[in-house]
């Protein structure tokens, strides 16, 4: 029995869409030029078209490819990526220590079981480690604390 592998199909179509988006944006905004004198738009257009082509090939191949196991997780990636975003959001207004503490505490939630004491202790220990490595040993000019208000 042959069923279309939905995951492969989606992957292929997304790739093709991405390629097409790059190519169309490049055609609309940058000069493509001629083969002899290539403009800045030439490479993106050609590469975007290639990406679209490969995406379509993958999507067609979904008809024959075997189903692969492996679940798609939502909670873990959301927490881990959230930790990175939190760091990016806090580092400039509040300084290094709050950014590390908050992002480390968020990161520990990915485990599923919330252990507040473990999270807080780990956050503090890593703040200290970062201070020792980056500020004391490597002497990077990082602001430790800031209060924007």
């Amino acid at each position, binding site marked *: 029995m042959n069923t279309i592998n939905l995951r492969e199909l989606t992957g292929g179509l997304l790739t093709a869409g991405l390629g097409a988006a790059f190519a169309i944006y490049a055609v609309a905004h940058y000069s493509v030029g001629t083969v002899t004198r290539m403009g800045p738009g030439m490479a993106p257009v050609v*590469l975007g078209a290639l990406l679209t082509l490969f995406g379509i090939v993958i999507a067609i191949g979904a008809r024959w490819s075997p189903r692969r196991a492996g679940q798609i997780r939502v909670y873990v990636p959301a927490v881990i990526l959230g*930790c990175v975003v939190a760091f990016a959001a806090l580092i400039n207004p509040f300084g290094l220590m709050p950014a590390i503490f908050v992002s480390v505490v968020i990161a520990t939630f990915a485990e599923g079981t919330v252990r507040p004491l473990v999270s807080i202790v780990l956050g503090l220990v890593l703040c200290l480690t970062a201070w020792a490595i980056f500020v004391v040993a490597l002497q990077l000019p990082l602001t430790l604390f800031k209060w924007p208000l």
Partner: protein
Amino acid sequence: MELLSNLALGLETALTPVNLLYCFFGVFLGTLIGVLPGIGALAAISMLFPITFHLEPTTALIMLAGIYYGTAYGGSTASILLNIPGGTSSAVTCLDGYPMAKQGRAGVALAMTAIGSFYGGVYGIIVLSLFAPAIASWALAFGSAEYFAMMVLGLIAASAISDGSVVKGLTMVVLGILLATVGMDPQSGTARFTFGSLSVLDGLSISALAMGLFGVAEIIASVRLTDAVKVDPKAFSYRTLMPTRDDVRRSWGPMFRASTIGSLFGALPGTGPSVASFVSYAVEKRISKEPERFGKGAIEGVVAPETANNAADQTAFIPTLSLGIPGSATMALMIGALMVHGIHPGPNLVAEQPKLFWGLVMSFWIGNVLLVILNLPLIGLWVRLLSVPYHLLYPAILMFICIGAYSVQYSAFDVMVVFGFGLLGYLMRIFGMPPAPLLLGFVLGPLIEEHFRRAMILARGDFSAVIERPITGSILAVTLLILIWSLWSGWRVGKRRRARAHLMEQED
């Protein structure tokens, strides 16, 4: 006697206190990361990549290289003691290493591995110092057309020979080149895909890209799935580290053959330490008079793959340093580290930066000696490290990634780039797209575009004139053959797999 004076210059460079210190850091971290499961060499190198911005290029490369070959040493420890390969290149070592450990011969296995690794490393270094300058001087005559062809060969070989679907590998190469076009076009000054933002005018940061794709995405995939291993360091009996006379007698041949095999596969684009270790194990089993001993604790089965992967680790630097063409994603990061410092890797590198090239080569010697010293007496420490629970480890890794990305330009935007590539990396995992070809494409992309444009201007837009150049033509022909061969073998494997799946469904 130019070689001798070069070696002396290299030794002088490698022995400066700063370089010695970072060489030690590199191999120490490499061993640590090789031992720890759930974090690979690539993730480690991308995490430490930002530090290299603050170092001299030679020192930076010495440290990154140390991490790279250090993981091969550390990986074997986990393979032998726990039957868990620390990395793909040590996977074969499990087959005979773990049975040896169960027989109480772990000490001998580790000792012979260290000796074999050292021999392989030294062999690789000699091959590197003989061949890299020769290849570089030959390649000095290359024009843009030849460069373009070499890079296409490197990219296609790396994406086609790596495991998984060829089409997906190529897709990722193309996506990598496409992402590299983001930022200011060096030839026309046009800002491409910046959407008016000044932060990306210099292009996307390679360190943020690597940390997102290999660091963050790897963590997302491992959290809650990586169990800390419970090891009792006393459970392994180190009756002796000293191999018996029989062990030594059996190991000479494999060491010699494996280092030759490793050197060959290390230098070829697309293959690398993993392929080298598999092939050398297979060769030893094939030519052995008693193949039935393999899988039950044969010393040859431990020594051969570990010698081969260390030799391959060293010779992987041949195309990277003599042509500027990386054969693997790790080597692409080395190239990236050089480019950050404004050094364009290519055949000129050996002649123009003798301190860098020979200093790096000589640091390999020092690094390999340090590794033997680190690994043999400190094995107990490494084994204890294996039991650090992952749920304490990954927040620390994430913290290092965030600070590392931020510290390059003190920009929160770079941290968001890490976020973007972390997300992309996870999506790619879901759809089974390999991340390594993307990094290769990203590093080589700007060079390919530049050389192709220049070649086409010189050929007055006539592509056939480019192909008719003898070296360019033959390189592109080889590339085409590799592509056809890998597509065909991929199709055959797919057919066999489908037939098997079909059979299983019928049996259900």
